[in-house]
């Protein structure tokens, strides 16, 4: 890998509303946006919990909700990066949006219209396929570089960020707008309900009482630049995307491998890519869906990577914003960048009574101050896919007065 990849801007439309700071404030406060489903009618399902983007957050117009989320997040990320695309060689600007469903509501409306025998403007289906979110965003931004839609279900957003680093390393792009987007729809709400993967009470990652996930929605987009590009325009890096890894469980289509071997492989691959040993990691952002099996798998995987002697601090955001599927890994990359910037790890919302089987140091209750230099993010998905990212602080140190490396974390 020749050129380093710097994160220079973040944007988010989350169940807490528009903006990364809105999200970051809510996460530090330990709040949860998971509530009774309001915006979508799911015929035949009661008591569904979800984390929805507030209706007022993004202007209502003719675009699909997923496209509005993605555009708003991308524009915030570009503003945050201080980057005017008009100043760039647009053929060197890539767009990478992880996807799990595409614009599924278009397909839903088409099938309902066919069932009812009512008219439907079928050309709208062009906005439906998996790649449509990324191409619609590229069209809105006017970019001419690669437009990619990696799709590994719930780990797609994590892969998208890693792919941005690879595009830069292989000289396909200088700037990448990368992340993930997801809009809730009847299709996916019914799907997770029929798998009995959802909770009827609360999302409790790593908690003894955990009984399932709640779906969420939104978009998280990041501006990732080659070091050369960022330095040339004097853009301060918020973090380095230092390593990425992918792996395959090859065990089961919808259940995680019990031993966590696949997730451990992706984490080790990301660390090797970053040329770091596991003991360099200060904080882990967990997948933490709060299903019984996912969290047990992750406990095993993290134990395997860090060893029984090390209790690495772990935080997870799915108790706060639900499982945002293809957007989840991108939200978690923003979380990692904020941990590096502020030296603060948010509590894992929903985790109260730690599972006795869990030997991890789950950050819970309140924020913890950790002068983190390296953060690892891990994601796992249906079809046995795993993805991991390593984010590293970039010199010069973002803030003066932070404690030097090597000091152990403490709870305030």
């Amino acid at each position: 890998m020749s050129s380093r990849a710097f994160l220079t801007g973040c944007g988010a439309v989350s169940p807490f509303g528009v903006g990364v700071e809105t999200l970051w404030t809510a996460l530090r406060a330990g709040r949860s946006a998971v509530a009774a489903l309001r915006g979508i009618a799911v015929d035949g399902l009661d008591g569904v919990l979800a984390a929805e983007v507030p209706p007022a957050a993004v202007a209502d117009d003719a675009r699909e909700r997923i496209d509005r989320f993605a555009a708003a997040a991308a524009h915030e990320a570009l503003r945050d990066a201080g980057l005017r695309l008009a100043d760039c060689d647009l053929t060197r600007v890539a767009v990478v949006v992880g996807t799990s469903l595409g614009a599924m509501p278009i397909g839903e409306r088409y099938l309902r219209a066919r069932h009812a025998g009512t008219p439907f403007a079928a050309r709208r289906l062009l906005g439906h396929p998996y790649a449509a979110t990324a191409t619609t965003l590229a069209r809105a931004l006017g970019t001419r570089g690669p437009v990619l839609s990696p799709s590994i279900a719930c780990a797609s957003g994590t892969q998208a960020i890693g792919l941005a680093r690879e595009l830069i390393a292989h000289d396909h792009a200088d700037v990448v707008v990368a992340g993930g987007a997801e809009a809730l729809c009847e299709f996916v709400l019914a799907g997770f309900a029929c798998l009995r993967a959802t909770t009827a009470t609360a999302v409790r990652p790593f908690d003894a009482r955990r009984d399932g996930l709640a779906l969420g929605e939104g978009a998280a987009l990041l501006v990732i630049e080659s070091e050369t590009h960022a330095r040339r325009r004097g853009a301060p890096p918020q973090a380095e995307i230092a390593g990425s890894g992918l792996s395959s469980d090859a065990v089961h289509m919808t259940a995680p491998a019990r031993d966590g071997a696949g997730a451990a492989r992706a984490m080790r691959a990301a660390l090797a890519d970053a040329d770091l040993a596991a003991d360099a990691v200060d904080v882990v952002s967990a997948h933490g869906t709060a299903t019984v099996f996912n969290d047990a798998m992750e406990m095993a995987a993290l134990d395997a990577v860090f060893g029984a002697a090390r209790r690495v601090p772990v935080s997870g955001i799915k108790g706060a914003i639900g499982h945002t599927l293809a957007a989840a890994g991108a939200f978690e990359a923003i979380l990692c960048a904020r941990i590096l910037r502020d030296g603060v790890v948010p509590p894992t919302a929903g985790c109260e009574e730690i599972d006795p089987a869990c030997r991890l140091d789950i950050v819970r209750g309140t924020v913890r101050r950790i002068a983190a230099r390296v953060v690892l993010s891990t994601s796992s998905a249906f079809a046995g896919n795993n993805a991991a990212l390593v984010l590293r602080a970039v010199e010069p140190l973002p803030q003066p007065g932070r404690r030097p490396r090597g000091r152990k974390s403490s709870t305030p």
Partner: protein
Amino acid sequence: MTGAVVITGFGIVSPLGHSLPELARRVAAGEQAATTADGSVIASIPLDVIPAAARTRIGRLDRLCRLALAASYLALDDAAVALPLAAPQRVGLVFGSGLGCLLSNAEFYAKIVAQGAAAASPRAFASTVSSAAAGEVSIALGVHGPNTTMHMGLAAGVAALGYAMDLVGGGRADMVLAGGVDALDAWLATALRDMGLFKTPAQARPFLDAVPGLWPSEGAAIAVVESAAHAAARGARVRARLLAYAAGFEPTLSGRAPLPHGVVATLRRALAGQPAPARVLVSAHGTPCDAIERAALQAVGLGAVPVVAPKACLGDAFGASGAFAAALASAGAPTPALISALCPSGSIAALLVEACAPV
């Protein structure tokens, strides 16, 4: 740091045969795929290539997964890769698909429309992740390395081969099964008709018929992509070398672009290492963006080189199309061939392939 990357085998499940030699022969003879009564184009998927022990899951697999699984076994066989894999954590999967599991999605949701969400089927839902085909193949073959599915419309197969080239060239894997897969049925053909985008073979002649739309087809073309060093170490026959890959975007692809900058820039990057572009063959996307493609090929100095368009024989197999083109180029003359893939959505992918030995 990018090492040399080669292709040592192809698994082909196509409307014109289930091996590269047969496909190459029938395309050379100008045969054309025919649509079957149920709307599909491949009359029978060669599931008998799947070992008996791995056939237990076939009953629950959708058409996309079956195409991918059969093509993957054929690819390993063509590349003389034995199972179980010697170093599964160093083997990856990159599948490109234009439509992914849209057919399974429609089946899953149609039941909800008819009977309500409570009737939703967990088994059907498991087929509605577009990574399902790669997931099924990873389970069957025991692949433990990088595994992903890339969507890029009609350019997805080329994008998958390009990403595999980066994974192998960058040292993230020794071997990657990569290519394109898309499945067709009556539902999809109906949707295309509803959209006014369905064309018959007679209406979809590359570089002759500029009307929007496509002649839908299907299939899978999966390559075994390896580092040259890995292929040499195991004594593998090299079918082709992957010389360059580039991707880009042109928002006016579906309209009338006077100067398609995105296409020109992408093709230029793919050709950047070529000392004599005039010697390059072109395997064109061909339809439905052929007017723009012609202008772009002229702009990069390829206005007078030989151009082929396998879609004239195979139809538009969505994401698999570009992978079929790469396979055919690998079976052709030992001259660099530019595989150009343009999706009306705006996505462009270009791959430079050089055949090594006649098939």
